[in-house]
């Protein structure tokens, strides 16, 4: 998957977790929490969705990497570069 495709995957997951939010104007360099109503259970949903869909394991110590879209994609890229999008 390319970075652009990984971004699409994260967007899809976010839309599922926060169905009331409009993600069209999401700023990739600003933290999710500043832009969306997300709490710790929601972040666990992101982790769980990636695990279920792509078997990607994100250790708890790495959660801070999921702060913004940019940092998330950056973090996921080496883990997902050889995977096909489902």
């Amino acid at each position: 998957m390319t970075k652009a495709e990984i971004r699409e995957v994260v967007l899809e997951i976010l839309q599922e977790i926060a169905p009331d939010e409009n993600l069209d104007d999401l700023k990739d360099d600003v933290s999710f929490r500043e832009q969306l109503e997300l709490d710790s259970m929601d972040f666990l949903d992101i982790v769980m969705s990636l695990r279920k869909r792509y078997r990607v394991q994100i250790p708890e110590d790495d959660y801070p990497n999921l702060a913004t879209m940019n940092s998330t994609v950056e973090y996921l890229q080496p883990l997902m570069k050889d995977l096909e999008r489902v």
Partner: protein
Amino acid sequence: MIAGHPDQQRIVITGVGLTAPGAGDLRTFRENLLAGRSGVQKYEIRYVGQTLAGICNHDEYRYQSRKDRRRGTRAGAIGIYCAHEAIRDSGIDWENVDRSRVGIYVGVTEHGNVETENEIYELQGYNYDTQFWSHHHNPRTVANNPAGEISLNLGITGPHYTIGAACAAGNLGVIQGVQMLRLGECDLALAGGVSESIHTFGIFASFKSQGALAHHEDPHKASRPFDRDRNGIVVAEGGCIYVLERFSDAKARRAKIYGEVVGYGVNSDATDFVLPNPQRQVECMQMALRQAKLNPEDIDIVSTHATGTTTGDHQEAVAIRAVFGESRRTRINNTKSFIGHAMGAAGVLELSGNLPAFQDGIVHATINVDNLDPDCAMPGLVLNEPQEVGRVNYILNNSFGMLGINSALIVKRL
């Protein structure tokens, strides 16, 4: 004792919020009951396949965001809908109500089965590897979930909990609210019951294994308490929450009052896991009458619990004949014949469908009785067509549950 209490000890119903199969509010529910309209439909559920159920079609998102709905449970969503509707109906100035003095008491027959079954079903796709088990499982399945979701949604900081009392739970929720108001533990109670039970295959499968799951080619004819050809229970979802207040408070704000809870009885059979005990049911109804200082002939309507099982209906008829057999005034009806068995919501929904009789003087029927089972014959049983009786002063509402929990609640017209 209740009668003769000062107004602060008298507890009245000032708001009704409900969702039932075929009705998202009391007016529609009552219209269906008077028109003989059933809310039972064909339904399919995992593993069990085609069956029948009472299904609600209220708008889940009227009072809840999609995100909160996704995080919570069907029982929680039903509770939230009913609580909002009840508050709105009560006409209370909700913005200025002290939320720390509001108590939430919600009856449930069961809770957590739906989420547990769904998670295990999902987990099967991951070879039962528990690292794929949802972190939402615990908050969704804790027994207080349906009441807790109401608290979260409405910002209520008073006590919230559920009351597990099998199919007597709807009555028990109301009784708990009455008790807490009398004790001064809260100033306003949101009390009643909810059912999400049609979303767990286990309840259908278990009733089927027990030989107690109703079937009929016409869904509308499937729920038929007291009929000779009844063959079991139609499982339903639903909910009903009351706003309960002290009479003194309701009077002070000139609230519309549906009725006063003047008596109740709660006891246990202590005889069997499943089979009811008519003698204990008799004692339960007599307890409620004694508390209300009433005689059987004072009761205008007995709303029965009967679910459409061979033994249960017969046993309740035995109990009712023993208490009300000599009363010429008392009419007897049944709501499950219209909507099926709404489990934790059943008691309070069934009472609600009868409350408008205080205004319109009509007793809704029990429908689908094509051939009355002689074992279930009771004087005053209102069969298939509603009856105009004139002034209705008292309703007694029966609600019984597995493990032998019995309840009877008496509401008085004010």
